[in-house]
């Protein structure tokens, strides 16, 4: 019986079952408001995860993922769409779904840096912030259309990354990490003391407008009034989809291979003609660009930003998502983002302790499953 079920799950059915399970679980979890049901949801998912691992269901799912990749991609698109539709009138949950997707884009950027090229970056939130502030200032100060401002937010983050990469390349190991930490602290202080950028009180961000549609108004659909976050969520999904395709193609190319070589062994890489700096710079710039784009969209969605949104602790949060999800595994990154964004929102009481809880989780992960929730699989080039 068990064997039949595994065979069933390792086919295309595995994908659909998995997608439905995620929709149902996320719907229940997002709807839950009391601590007890929330807690039950979490225990259920951890239990299911452990059981799936013990019963080799995860292996079946992995086979299914490798063999029916296109179907999995479609389902991955269907899950957020279904959830967005289910919560069409609910501002708060739509905002959370959007936040998950935006954070996932930033962590995908971090994944290119740390997961592929092995460039450590403790200032991911700062590049997220550079994107956010750049797009805001371009809209309010220069009157640029929001879409152009969004893209330039990504460009600006990439440019600042081009400067920071020089001291990072000149150092290695812990010292490179220290350079990025210093940058994270510097960014926060710089934003705090500059009144031009709104100072510590922050600054309001104009909404996204696209093809004359203002994203800050609710819209009517028949008799129901849809939340204005619905449009933002669709835009977030578009950005995440594009970022995901881009990073996946990057991984499955000679570029991704060269980055992996640089990360695993720089002496051997050098002996086979691989230009180490070139790939570290590429990874750093690409990753920061993704973080910047994500930050710009996040700012518009939140309509207000302040330096407190982009602290060193937030950078650690991004890193912990990557470590929990599985360095180098993009599905793992997205899965971990869901938990890391939702858990503190659902348990308001733990807000104060969330870093304590994350560090505990990361420690447990490093001890029991050092490769994360979903370890990275060997590369395929399809």
């Amino acid at each position, binding site marked *: 019986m068990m064997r039949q079920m595994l065979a069933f799950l390792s086919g295309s059915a595995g994908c659909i079952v998995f997608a439905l399970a995620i929709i149902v679980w996320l719907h229940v979890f997002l709807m839950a408001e009391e601590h007890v049901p929330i807690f039950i949801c979490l225990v259920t998912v951890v239990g299911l995860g452990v059981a799936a691992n013990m019963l080799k269901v995860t292996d079946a799912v992995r086979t299914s993922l490798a063999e029916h990749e296109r179907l999995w991609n479609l389902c991955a698109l269907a899950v957020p769409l279904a959830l967005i539709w289910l919560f069409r009138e609910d501002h708060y949950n739509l905002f959370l779904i959007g936040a998950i997707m935006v954070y996932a884009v930033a962590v995908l950027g971090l994944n290119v840096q740390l997961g592929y090229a092995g460039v450590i970056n403790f200032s991911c939130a700062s590049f997220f912030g550079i994107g956010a502030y750049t797009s805001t200032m371009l809209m309010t100060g220069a009157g640029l259309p929001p879409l152009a401002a969004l893209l330039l937010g990504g460009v600006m983050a990439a440019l600042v990354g081009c400067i920071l990469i020089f001291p990072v390349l000149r150092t290695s190991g812990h010292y490179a990490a220290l350079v990025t930490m210093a940058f994270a602290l510097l960014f926060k202080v710089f934003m705090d003391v500059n009144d031009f950028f709104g100072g510590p009180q922050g600054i309001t961000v104009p909404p996204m407008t696209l093809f004359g549609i203002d994203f800050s108004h609710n819209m009517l659909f028949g008799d129901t009034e849809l939340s204005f976050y619905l449009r933002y969520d669709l835009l977030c999904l578009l950005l995440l989809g594009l970022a995901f395709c881009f990073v996946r*193609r990057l991984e499955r190319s*000679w570029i991704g*291979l060269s980055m992996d*070589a640089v990360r695993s062994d720089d002496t051997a890489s050098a*002996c086979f*003609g691989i230009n180490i700096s070139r790939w570290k710079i590429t990874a750093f710039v690409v990753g920061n660009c993704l973080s910047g784009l994500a930050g710009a969209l996040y700012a518009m969605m939140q309509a207000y930003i302040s330096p407190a949104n982009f602290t060193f602790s937030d950078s650690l949060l991004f890193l912990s998502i990557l470590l929990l999800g599985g360095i180098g595994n993009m599905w793992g990154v997205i899965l971990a983002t869901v938990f890391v964004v939702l858990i503190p929102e659902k348990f308001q009481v733990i807000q104060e302790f969330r870093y304590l809880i994350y560090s505990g989780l990361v420690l447990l992960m490093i001890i029991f499953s050092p490769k994360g929730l979903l370890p990275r699989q*060997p*590369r395929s*080039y399809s």
Partner: protein
Amino acid sequence: MKPLLCCANLTMRFGGLTALDSLDLDVLEGEILGLVGPNGSGKTTFFNVVTGIYRPDSGNVTFDGEDITGLAAQEIYYRGIARTFQRSRLCLDLSVFDNIMIGNHKALHLGFWHNIFKRREFKAEYELFREQATQLLCALNPELADRILKPVGDLSMIDRRRVEICRALISRPRLLFLDEPSAGMTPDETRQLMDEIVALDTDGQAFSLVLIEHEMEVIRRITSRCVVLNFGRKLCEGAYETVTADSQVQEAYLGRELEE
């Protein structure tokens, strides 16, 4: 035969230690040269200096008539020198194919546009290299060709060595350095691997091979000439029989007889 690689007066110091001491060493076109000597005699340092990992303190390295002294490791690879490492430096979490492709770096198209957006062209390129890698693997061990997408970390020591040799060979080097390929293997496995190396069909393109090896049996069987190093100096060179008969070599390996 004219020399492919000429090293003249090569000196490499690490602090107070002179790892290579005014070494003169030539590698001829198409030969298999055995490099032997006790531990710490400077064999691996010699490889590292020629392949650009270390920059020599003095002396010259000429490859195919051009001075390559002190060039970066990347540059040396592009000129046609490939190597393996004493402690195999494979990327264990990458697949066999990925590891071989690292050696194929000079043939890969690395442009962003090509890799990300021209996927059809990229895949054609991938199929071609996949075929090349499979052929190389088949020449050493056909079973490896079936495991081409498996991580190298899952392979046995001898298979890892084979992958490392394929990684060096796929770039079609003119000079190949093998740094103790038998380390960590049984005598039987060593014999097998050496037979495979000697039997390699390189499409008529001859390459010179320099082999560091402690198994004297291997040296006797496959090399055409030997160089013995001791304390970074060349002690003696010539055919296996000449070298092993040399009293200085015996002294370096076995020590001097006590004078009565």
